[in-house]
């Protein structure tokens, strides 16, 4: 079976992540092994630093950790996102330690055999409009996520903000990117709305805009604008851009 990763990419990975090996198993392509990182996070400037030098070090947030992972490279690579899974049992450990009912709270997608949701689906094309650079993918998405797990393990919270689950997260994501006025991004967000069999799409297409004092669509009895304010604004923003053309 043809190698899906070029010699060059395998070499690059070998340089930066020497403990990951390229393997083929059951006609699927993987990078398997471990990732060892040292990193810290500058909260006020929102900068994540891998291998911080002495000057850059922020002791309170410094973490040195290691994870056993597998990265499934799909046939559609380098256009399609690889699936990343933690296979050393850490996720389970962290979930138990913090009494989490479901690993979904650590952004694990059970429908993809416990793959990690590194970012909202519509963001994938935004981050890599053309081809996915695997080393960049590791540095910018995978390692920060693993750092987040270790941080959560230690402190009980994610080091930076997380999106809400499901469609609410998509609305929040669009709200944060609405200034881009990117119609294709808006369409992708709309297409990704899956909850309740795509029922949430009606908030975009309905003639009347949903008001902030209505009960939140997450099911809490709170007013939408108090409960998931950013998601609400995301719905309004999506309506604005998508309904303009129709």
């Amino acid at each position: 079976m043809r190698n899906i990763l070029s010699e060059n990419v395998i070499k690059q990975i070998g340089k930066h992540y020497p403990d990951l090996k390229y393997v083929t198993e059951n006609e699927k392509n993987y990078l398997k092994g471990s990732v060892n990182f040292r990193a810290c996070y500058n909260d006020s400037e929102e900068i994540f630093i891998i291998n911080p030098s002495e000057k850059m070090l922020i002791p309170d947030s410094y973490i040195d950790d290691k994870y056993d992972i597998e990265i499934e490279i799909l046939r559609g690579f380098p256009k399609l996102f690889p699936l990343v899974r933690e296979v050393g049992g850490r996720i389970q450990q962290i979930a138990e330690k913090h009494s989490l009912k479901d690993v979904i709270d650590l952004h694990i997608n059970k429908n993809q055999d416990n793959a990690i949701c590194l970012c909202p689906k519509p963001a994938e094309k935004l981050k890599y409009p053309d081809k996915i650079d695997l080393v960049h993918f590791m540095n910018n998405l995978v390692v920060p996520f693993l750092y987040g797990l270790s941080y959560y393990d230690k402190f009980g919270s994610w080091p930076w903000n997380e999106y809400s689950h499901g469609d609410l997260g998509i609305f929040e994501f669009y709200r944060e990117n609405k200034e881009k006025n990117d119609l294709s991004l808006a369409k992708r967000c709309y297409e990704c709305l899956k909850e309740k069999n795509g029922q949430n799409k009606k908030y975009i297409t309905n003639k009347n805009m949903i008001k902030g004092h209505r009960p939140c669509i997450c099911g809490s009895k709170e007013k939408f604008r108090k409960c998931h304010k950013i998601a609400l604004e995301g719905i309004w923003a999506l309506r604005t851009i998508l309904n303009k053309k129709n």
Partner: protein
Amino acid sequence: MNMNESQNEISMMLKQYAEMLDIPVSYYLEAKKRYESVGDWLSKGDSTLSIYNPEIYPQGSFLLGTVIKPISNKDEYDIDLVCLLADLKKNDTSQSNLKSIVGERLKEYDDYKRLLDEEGRRCWTLDYANEFHIDILPAINDLEFQLKGNLYEDAILITDKKKIDQGDSKWPKSNPKGYAKWFFSRQEIVYMVIKKQIAKISEKSIDDVPDYKVKTPLQKVVQILKRHRDIFFLKKQEKYKPISIIITTLAAKIYQGQEDIYTTLSDILNGINEDIVKQDGKFNIPNPANTEENFADKWNEDKKLPLAFFDWINNARDTFCRNVLKERKDQIVGVLNESLGIKIMIAPELDQKDKLPKVENSTSPIIVKKPSKPWCF
């Protein structure tokens, strides 16, 4: 970054801040619906006030287009509404009578009765908990002042419970429409330019562009300064916080129609000095729509007020004039974010790629700006 580039980038950032500070359109439209309903109740149908030909209109930041979001989600928007009984003559009524007939009419509607706060000094307040509260100010025409014409055409007389209780029956004066007329005259040309631009982009006629969609650099700067003040005084004594009308008046006075927001902000901050707030050795910021009124009268009674004001102005100069001279954009934004209590998104520095260490070996530091926020189905 060279000066022109950096000025443009700072202006872009300031525009983002101003946009994030503004009342969201949906809230604005809801507020407008609410106060128009209140207006209808007071003036239309079988209202007991209809014989006086009531005119209901907003005043303050809603009229001037300088509303900013409250700091916390728990705070509310303040809407000021004037309830002018146009045909009620001063000689046919008294301050207490005027105040009470407006209050009585409000109480006749059960919903408003439920929302009505305790009687205020000058107004009645409807409290829509966690959303808005609407201050309704009963008023009559100040026919004497209106004779002066121009900015005084809509001058009004209002009521003051405190003074009445003290035995003072002199009617306090106010002129919100006159003030707004003056404020808009300070930005007339830029306002039309922006309105035309919006009309062009949205393919509408100029008349179809609603006023709330137009924001001039002056309005945005007033919003930014108000918010900067709010955050600055969070850690200090709130009673010394400079009042918004002073900030608005000084900004509008100094403004000369600049089209760039950064230039507007720095010109205004540099233009505020002791001279502009004093006259004949005393603190005096006259109301352009009623020169007898001095917005800074209390500054002459308590020296801590002008001290707090200049303390804040110095800090604002630091934030917006000195801080922006720094080399790194992320440092500039860090300070702005903190002083305004908002985080904006900035495009990564274009030349940052060159500054990042070449990753030859895997132990060089790797910088990731704004790491991805995780999500799940």
